[in-house]
């Protein structure tokens, strides 16, 4: 477990969310219980449509739960959002096409009312972090999909939030780039002691990054396993060959398989 103090950042109890659609209601989240402590790196993993994004959106106050209780930093999600308590990386890049890369990163900073210099400085710092120096003045459509996704990561980081919500941020990237960014993210987490909530489809990625892995299953979306990882905080990619790593991977895979609808 992590070596920082165990102040809970997110507390979720018996959370339920039902979408009212035209035909039948969709029970997207069912009786979710979860606590995330300060400094945790929590990964959500589970088949498509199991509610990972929805749970993340509830935490971010982009979706209202239909039952149960949730608090973020001891406040309601709405208050937390108004306090700008988190940074959110969406599943798609969501860059504004009329703004350059730099201006896109500066957008939240403008809204927060930071000084021009500070905005510029933060944009430059975070662009470097995702290996995109020199692309400041390009427009989003001049970048490849993977590069766009990296810009959106830089944008979320530039807010310098204590809580980082990331929804499949590395989905569109090839393995090498992905490995590289995994290491960068881990370094950032280790040094800044942020709390990170992370959605992924990749078991190795989840195991490599997380201090806690939440395995979910669909219809209705629920948590079927929570795996605490005792891998050291300062890990490198080599750790993926260790037996501890493979063991956790195996447990995640088993959890996934049991929650899956294919029974072959």
């Amino acid at each position, binding site marked *: 477990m992590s070596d920082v103090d165990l102040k809970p950042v997110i507390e979720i109890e018996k959370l339920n969310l039902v979408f009212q659609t035209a035909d039948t209601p969709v029970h997207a989240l069912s009786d979710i219980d979860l606590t995330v402590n300060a400094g945790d790196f929590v990964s959500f993993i589970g088949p498509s449509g199991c509610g990972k994004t929805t749970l993340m959106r509830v935490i971010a106050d982009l979706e209202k739960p239909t039952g149960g209780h949730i608090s973020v930093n001891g406040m309601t999600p709405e208050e937390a*959002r108004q306090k700008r308590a*988190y940074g959110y990386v969406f599943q798609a890049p969501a860059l504004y096409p009329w703004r350059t890369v730099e201006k896109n990163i500066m957008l939240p900073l403008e809204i927060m009312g930071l000084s021009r210099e500070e905005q510029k400085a933060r944009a430059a710092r975070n662009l470097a972090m995702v290996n995109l120096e020199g692309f400041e003045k390009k427009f989003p459509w001049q970048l490849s999909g993977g590069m766009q996704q990296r810009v959106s990561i830089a944008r979320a980081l530039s807010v310098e939030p204590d809580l980082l919500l990331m929804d499949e941020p590395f989905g569109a990237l090839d393995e090498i780039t992905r490995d590289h960014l995994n290491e960068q993210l881990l370094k950032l987490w280790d040094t800044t002691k942020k709390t990170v909530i992370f959605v992924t489809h990749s078991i190795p990625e989840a195991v490599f990054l997380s201090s806690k892995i939440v395995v979910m299953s669909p219809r209705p979306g629920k948590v079927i396993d929570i795996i605490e990882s005792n891998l050291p905080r300062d890990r490198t990619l080599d750790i993926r060959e260790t037996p501890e790593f493979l063991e956790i991977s195996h447990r995640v895979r088993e959890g996934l398989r049991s929650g899956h609808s294919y029974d072959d």
Partner: protein
Amino acid sequence: MTKPAEISKAGIWRRLYDGKSFPVFVVVLSLLILWYAGAVYMNSDRLIDQYERSKVEWSWQQLTEDAWSMERPILPAPQQIIVELHKTVIDKKITSKRSLVYHSYVTISSTLVGFALGALLGVLLAVGIVHLETLDRSLMPWIIASQTVPILAIAPMIIVVLGHIGLTGLVPKAIISMYLCFFPITIGMVKGLRSPDVLQLDLMKTYSASAAQVFWKLRMPASIPFLFASLKVAIAISLVGAIVAELPTGAVEGLGARLLAGSYYGQTIQIWSALVAASVLGMLLVWAVTITEKLVLGRTGREAV
């Protein structure tokens, strides 16, 4: 890879073919030929009638010649219109009441005022509709219904009513032009202001941005291409509106008055030259909007839609 020299040699026809001016030239040329033929066809009835009543011998050659030079043709030949345009655009002093430039100027000024008012009204309505649910629900059907009212038919009454409250001259014409042109702008702007997708809006929500910030940083820039697309439609409409509005003001001056006077005296050539002037004017106005669009969108790095 092919060498540049080869490209240019083999491609001179190709380039003409693929370019813009050559196709336009060809189409215009064929239209002109059709036009001349049409002029002979349409005017011949009356000419032959005349020949027969005055019992003159006539040949096809003479018929063609006469058909292209009638004083009051049913369809004037293009060169007749050009001669008339030359006479009324170049030869006349632009302050003269017989100068088309003067009349165009009169029409343009009410067009531009009407367009400006229409753009303002259109954008304001759209902003209201996007931000206030009550307006969205209650106003939209009536905005559509408003356009099914034949404004041209009630223009005379509008002029009278506005005259009653002391608005005369340019203002009533501009108001009629505004009534016609605000509609496409409202529709386009509503579409544009609503074009940001859920994700783009959610992003703003995660920053807990104020409504004003969402408007200026997201909705407004997202709507710019839509705005320009509707402005292009609207400016042509506002020209038509200004021309129409000139009729019931006593048809004193402006291209509409020229059209009407030409029509009143059966001066087909005058009608056609006023029509040509109006169309060219319309094209220039649309072109001006396109240039502005290029400038604005160029700054934001986007291309026109």
